[in-house]
């Protein structure tokens, strides 16, 4: 079996606290993986390592066969991260923000923000920001999609949007999703992991 994500003994600490401790897991290519765990269990840290936003202190992870430590540019070409941070410029409008990543028209309509495309981000609600961040991820057309709590701050319509997009991407891309929506995601996830205090349970 071919693995799009192969985490090998990854550890990461912030100061003296180990956020991740010797985590090893693998996600088959094209699969939907769910990473569950309570707040502070290391889910976001793991996704940020896989996206090369931060480096592991110990161990390594391969994404699409590329090392997150040594081949960061190659990993970045394959991945897109929906993070806790919106990665948006407050002074720019939605269209201008997305233009940095590609042609925004189709994805703006897809996430239901076409009518507000010219409004500055500073006027957006938290849910709208989440939708726009989601649009950025879609625009990048990644082979490995890293979604950190994608349902957070969304309304029921937004929940359906995430489900639809994940369903559309299934098979075309590998999806790694860190979430508290265990029951919802558990229904369609191909592989499931649980983190507790930085360790795989």
């Amino acid at each position, binding site marked *: 079996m071919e693995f799009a994500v192969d985490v090998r003994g990854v550890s990461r600490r912030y100061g003296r606290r180990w956020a991740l401790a010797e985590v090893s897991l693998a996600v088959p290519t094209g699969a939907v993986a769910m990473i569950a765990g309570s707040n502070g269990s290391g889910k976001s840290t793991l996704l940020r390592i896989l996206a090369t936003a931060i480096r592991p202190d110990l161990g390594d992870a391969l994404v699409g066969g590329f090392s997150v430590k040594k081949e960061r540019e190659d990993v970045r070409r394959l991945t897109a991260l929906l993070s806790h*941070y919106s*990665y948006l410029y407050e002074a720019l409008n939605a269209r201008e923000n997305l233009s940095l990543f590609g042609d925004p028209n189709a994805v703006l309509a897809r996430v239901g923000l076409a009518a507000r495309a010219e409004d500055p981000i500073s006027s957006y609600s938290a849910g709208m920001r989440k939708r726009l961040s989601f649009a950025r991820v879609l625009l990048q057309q990644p082979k490995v999609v890293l979604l950190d709590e994608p349902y957070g701050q969304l309304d029921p319509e937004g929940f359906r949007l995430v489900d639809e997009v994940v369903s559309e991407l299934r098979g075309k891309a590998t999806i790694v999703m860190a979430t508290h929506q265990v029951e919802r995601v558990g229904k369609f996830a191909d592989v499931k992991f649980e983190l507790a205090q930085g360790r795989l349970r």
Partner: protein
Amino acid sequence: MLRKELLLQWRTRAQFMAVFVFGAASLLLFSFAIGPNSVALRTFSAGFLWLGLLLSSTLTLSESFHAEMENRALEGLLLIPTSPQAIYYAKTIANWLQLALLGIALVPVMVVLYDAGPQSIGRLLLVILLGSAGLSAPGTLYAGMTAQLRAKQTLLPLLFFPLIVPALLASVKATSLAVLGDPMDQGRSWITLLSAFVAIYWSLCGLLFGRVIEE
């Protein structure tokens, strides 16, 4: 990238006015230090113009990374991936334009407060363009380096000022000759020296930027 930088600067243009007022106020305070001695005022006008611009530059340079850090937008760009050099040079060019505009806007203030009408306006503009380019390249690098630190407002000038002393010196000398007159054409050699520093800053800082912003 450059379009994004210029858009961000345009949307925060009110801040430019505030920095201009700060620069003009600095020139006014320096003129009080000299007193009503018109010869001394004219002699030191170039130095004070560049001091005013230098102090103002720490505000604009530091602020240029505020938008990048607000929602970690810079991290988002790096993860696309975007070349750190593209990010750096877009931001440096935008900062350069802003500092050059600020320098040009401060010239009439200098003329009025120090009775320092330039002998060669063309050369003065050239020196302002080159000198602001000399400030913007290392300034953008250090602003990026300190952007995530709590003590960024203190650290930026501490790191930035010592590095730009050579370019500042050449800028002051060349400006002084453009204001007071240059019968021996010494200004040309100062401008050449300034251009050399600018070339070094722009190439070295561009190379280093990727290392200072990545974890």
